[in-house]
């Protein structure tokens, strides 16, 4: 196993809202090895994006990291100064967002935006900076990069725009890229293309990735390990193939059951009843308990996340092999 690159432990990010304070992320711990692709799955509001932003130190007030640690190559990131965090962002950990037409600045050329990202970290000459931009654009599959670099974002298609955003994230050769639903806003056919390319790009460059998505199918095709979040907490973690074959948490099984490709042919897709509770008003104990078919009195206390480097689950009644249909 490759050495640990990112070590998140006990991460808790709290938002003070008018209705009271809530923990968007609570006690989340996981590691990412060098070059590894980890999938982070959950519905909207589960805290997966906030986890990504917390790692980058990009939580805006009224939110803040109240406890826990984020270590990159053994160096603690929580509590770093603004300047130290800024110089870490983009150079060591980069991030790609969901909608490239919202992330790229519509009034600046691709080259300007890429050069700004380079200039934030190193002082390359004009020619060298331009050459780096063209090289990275080529690497993410933009044809005729030397000419296209002078274009504006609106002159690219959606898929190409996301490639440009990915190129900007890659510019400073970060060791880790946090991908926050980078294919969700794209056409399905383009999605598959970008998934495959990013996977091979990561393998070639040795870049680790945290792939955040609500879409289990997408995540399962890129990531080798999966983390499932629910209501701000990590509820299941493990190697992708094992979790898919045999989920331990009833929520994970519910997610799998609602996937078209995963349900047995001819059967209806299974919905998880109810919706995720509001973080302001969480049920006592396990947050999934009101929607869970296996819940009993014991579930009124918060289950601990089972220890272990391999598979972990936060459930009083983890599903054993025989309970899986």
């Amino acid at each position, binding site marked *: 196993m490759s050495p640990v690159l990112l070590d998140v432990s006990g991460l808790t990010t709290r938002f003070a809202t008018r209705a009271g304070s809530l923990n968007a992320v609570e006690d989340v711990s996981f590691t990412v090895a060098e070059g590894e692709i980890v999938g982070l799955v959950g519905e909207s509001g589960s805290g997966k994006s906030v986890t990504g932003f917390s790692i980058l130190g*990009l939580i805006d007030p009224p939110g803040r990291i109240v406890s826990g640690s984020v270590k990159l190559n053994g160096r603690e990131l929580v509590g770093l100064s603004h300047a130290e965090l800024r110089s870490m962002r983009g150079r060591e950990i980069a991030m790609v967002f969901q*909608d490239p037409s919202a992330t790229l600045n519509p009034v600046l050329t691709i080259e300007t935006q890429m050069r700004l990202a380079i200039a934030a*970290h190193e002082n390359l000459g004009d020619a060298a900076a331009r050459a780096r931009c063209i090289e990275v654009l080529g690497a993410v599959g933009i044809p005729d990069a030397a000419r296209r670099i002078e274009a504006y974002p609106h002159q690219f298609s959606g898929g190409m725009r996301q490639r440009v955003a990915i190129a900007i994230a890659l510019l400073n050769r970060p060791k880790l890229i946090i991908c926050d639903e980078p294919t969700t806003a794209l056409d399905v056919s383009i999605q598959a293309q970008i998934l495959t390319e990013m996977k091979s790009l990561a393998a070639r460059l040795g870049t680790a990735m945290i792939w955040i998505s609500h879409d289990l199918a997408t995540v399962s095709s890129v990531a080798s390990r999966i983390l499932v979040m629910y209501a701000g907490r990590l509820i299941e973690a493990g190697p992708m193939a094992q979790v898919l074959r045999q989920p331990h948490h009833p929520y994970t099984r519910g997610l799998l059951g609602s996937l078209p490709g995963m349900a047995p042919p001819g059967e209806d897709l299974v919905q998880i009843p109810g919706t995720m509770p509001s973080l302001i008003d969480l049920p006592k104990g396990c947050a999934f308990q009101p929607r869970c078919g296996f819940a009993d009195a014991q579930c009124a206390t918060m289950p601990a996340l089972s220890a272990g480097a391999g598979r972990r689950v936060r459930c009083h009644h983890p599903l054993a092999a025989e309970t899986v249909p």
Partner: protein
Amino acid sequence: MLGFIIQRVLQAFVVMLVISALVFTGVYAVGNPIDVLISPDATQLIREQTIRAYGLDQPLWKQYLDFLGRLVRGDFGRSFVYNMPVLDLIFSRLPATLELTLAAVIGATALGVPLGMYAGYRPDSAASKAIMAISILGFSVPTFWIGLVLIFTFAVSLGWLPAGNRGDTASLFGIQWSFLTWNGLTHLFLPALNLSLFKFALMVRLARAGTREVMLTDTVKFARAAGLSEGTILLRHVLRLIAIPIVTVFGLEFGSTLAFAVVTETIFSWPGVGKLIIDSISTLDRPVMVAYLMLVAFFFIMINLSVDVAYAALDPRLRTRRAA
């Protein structure tokens, strides 16, 4: 781009023609300049001679066509009062107004946009609240009153700055300007400050609203995630994204101040076109009024055209739409 400009210039011709008809009819419908021009005890003969000399005996349409005919040759007529070509008269006064207006609008923008951006960037800080309080004052206190207060404070009580007139001027491109001499600058300062307060308040509001909005977008988040410093983000990303409304208001304010800086020019005895037009209205100096109003229309057309060209320079998406 060139096609777009040509199209707009042709449009401008039509607009100018319509405006000339409106202005001519409007101005010629009110009052009788003869009563103002000659003494009441003049003989009937002199009276009729004067009317004929100014062409006032002709029907309105004939007068208008004559006017258009002269206009084509670049002749706006002669002032009834000053007895000199109207254009010479206006252009002798225009530089004074132009420099006053430019000083006010540029000063307001150069100060208002950065302060507004700061107020939008840190909306909860004490400095931002102070900036917004000043901008509310700039909006709500009448210009003439501030002008009087400024004169009273800086000219009368403190004696730091002169209370009126242009002061010494120096020549550039054959035109006399106040801003080229120190004495002229001291004369320019108070009236420009007076005119700029409202515009400053406007720029602060615009920049603040724009910045607040843009700071929440993914563009800023993405730039932060790439490690850009806050200064670079504000200067390179945010400023460009909020530029279009600012340029629009800059143009509008520039045009309207150029045309109607009357109040401030009167208070500070600034010898600009604003005072000229007020005088010409009270003496029913029709050629001056007509020429001035047409000039104002022309300025607005030119300013709007420049603003549109600036849009295309600022936002590439507008460029392609036009080319298509």
